């Protein structure tokens, strides 16, 4: 096996910039519930805590590769370069939205940047990603698909059926299992036989004769290295890999689920609201990916304080602009519906 390269300075700074942008975007979405009540409807899910996994994994891709993910999708698009203004406008239901206001937060898609879409139904996007890899194989190119999903999805048939076919056909795909410890409100050890037995979820790969490994999903460099190895393997035509990235979701599963006219908002994390275990949540906060990565960059001498602060300020300004753009954009007309059929 080739030795894993260490990311260069530019890539490290790029990673930090993307992680900060993802966090800032999610913070702005969350703040919308009290800053602009009523603007975000339905159910919205945030990726704070997942930044290192999202950015580390996507850093392993080529621009012509494909990505599919779940309804918790904002971070992937931001990292792939989708303008946050279009994303925020979509989340606000505006005509200028990425999907013309037809999809909303759960259904962002940007095929021009390789992000083929999501499913709002747990695990049901996994076969889509697997089918994209099948398409690559039929066309005979050396592209790769990254497929993101959560720990809860691994109890769905769609997960098992897809991994079986992907391994059987040696499809060019890397499955990134984001184990954030909670399936919606249920703790993973309450609903996963491997977790209950004290084993990593990555052992599921054994059932499908593919490599499976667990990586610290709060460390973007480790994620980048492991996903790079798996992507290279997939590109060589040697088949899929299951990578379990462990981290802690820092927000609640989503905003509260209530009918109108009750205003929507985010409650505290389920560790606090359901399990009355604030200590668990505080411990997770001590292990946050962004401050740790920031400290590492300082320690390695990759960046000085001013540079990092510039990155953070730029992200704040960028997301402020995105919110303003979304607020000022017009509502869609009924004509938008006409795209139903091609």
């Amino acid at each position, binding site marked *: 096996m080739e030795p894993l390269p260490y990311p260069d300075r530019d890539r490290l700074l790029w990673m930090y910039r993307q992680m900060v942008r993802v966090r800032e975007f999610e913070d702005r979405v969350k703040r919308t519930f009290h800053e602009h009540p009523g603007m975000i409807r339905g159910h919205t899910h945030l990726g704070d805590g997942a930044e290192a996994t999202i950015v580390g994994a996507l850093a392993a891709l080529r621009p012509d590769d494909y990505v599919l993910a779940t309804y918790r999708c904002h971070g992937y698009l931001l990292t792939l370069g989708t303008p946050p203004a279009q994303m925020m406008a979509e989340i606000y239901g505006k005509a200028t939205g990425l999907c013309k206001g037809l999809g909303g937060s759960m259904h962002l898609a940007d095929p021009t940047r390789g992000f083929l879409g999501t499913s709002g139904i747990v695990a049901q996007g996994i076969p889509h990603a697997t089918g994209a890899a099948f398409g690559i194989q039929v066309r005979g190119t050396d592209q790769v698909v990254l497929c993101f999903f959560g720990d809860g999805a691994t109890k769905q048939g769609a997960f098992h059926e*897809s991994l079986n076919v992907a391994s059987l056909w040696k499809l060019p795909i890397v499955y990134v299992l984001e184990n954030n410890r909670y399936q919606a409100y249920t703790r993973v050890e309450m609903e996963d036989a491997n977790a209950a037995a004290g084993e990593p979820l990555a052992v599921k790969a054994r059932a499908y004769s593919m490599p499976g490994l667990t990586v610290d999903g709060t460390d973007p460099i480790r994620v980048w290295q492991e996903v790079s190895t798996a992507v290279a393997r997939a590109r060589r035509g040697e088949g899929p890999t299951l990578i379990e990235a462990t981290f802690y979701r820092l927000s609640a599963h989503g905003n509260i689920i209530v009918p109108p006219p009750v205003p929507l908002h985010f409650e505290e994390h389920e560790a606090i609201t359901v399990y009355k275990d604030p200590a668990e949540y505080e411990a997770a906060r001590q292990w946050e990916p962004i401050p740790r990565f920031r400290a590492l960059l300082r320690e390695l001498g990759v960046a000085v304080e001013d540079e990092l602060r510039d990155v953070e300020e730029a992200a704040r300004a960028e997301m402020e602009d995105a919110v303003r753009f979304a607020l000022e954009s017009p509502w869609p007309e009924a004509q938008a519906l006409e*795209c139903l059929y091609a």
Partner: protein
Amino acid sequence: MPRERAYIEAINEAIVEEMQRDPSVVFYGQNIALTDEDPMVKAFGRQRVRVTPISETAEMGMAVGAALVGLRPVVELLMTDFMLVGLDQVLNEAARMRFKSGGQVAMPIVFKAGYGFAAGWSVQHTNCWYSLFLGAPGLKVVAPSTAADAKGLMKAAIRDDNPVVYLHHYLLTLVPGEVPDDDHVVPIGLADVKRAGDDVTIVATGWMVQHALTAAQQLAGEGIQAEVVDPRTLAPLDTATILRSVEKTGRVVLVDQAPRHASVAALIAAEIAEAGFRALKAPPRLVTALDYPVPYSKPLEEHVLPSVEKIVQAVRGVLAA
């Protein structure tokens, strides 16, 4: 010169011709392409023709992903009853993918499945589930009744950039019919008048078209000229052709193998009631399956399903009203 061939041969011919025409068409499903001697494998190779595990969710869901990257998958699902196992992928994924992206992606998929196998296949393999698919705007649904339509609609379905549920009727599998020799494409969304008549309109789909034509022949002996209209496409429904016929005859019998309250017949009756009420000389009559599962025993199966006799009686009824 049109040649005669079986319904199933016409379907297969359409798939082969489209695969020859367009290298992005792929064909896969359970228990197909099992040996290297398989004609599809020989013609197109194992990349484009594949046998899958019994994994309907993966089979149908992978079609969505393959379509997203430019393939045109034809998924052989054998029976619509099997599609139920992974129905999310059809109703809530394939049918939604383009819309929720704001029109950024196309979904050229054919979900091919048999239905209505009323030959002692009992309760779980005989169903007519099409009303499920009609509840998912974004899908197109076709149900050919002749070999020519079977070929022409398969070609149209493969060329369509939207997900098409292609329903072939099991009891028509071996029924021969003339099929034009050229590149025969039947446009999706176009009904066909299978028999002209002035006295009464019979609207029927799939296997029921044969029943309706047999009934029409019997009725002709009594001096009654029935017009038989086959919608061919269930979504989008060609209500204009149906309404034109009803305006001419003023009387309509709707025949459907599905249970009454999940039938296309009920849907068409509502369209006629709303848009063609003034033309009606008698209330529409529905001849559908009874609201029971299809039972195993032959006399019970016949009791539950529509028959030529039930159609004839219904026609006499609307003429007497």
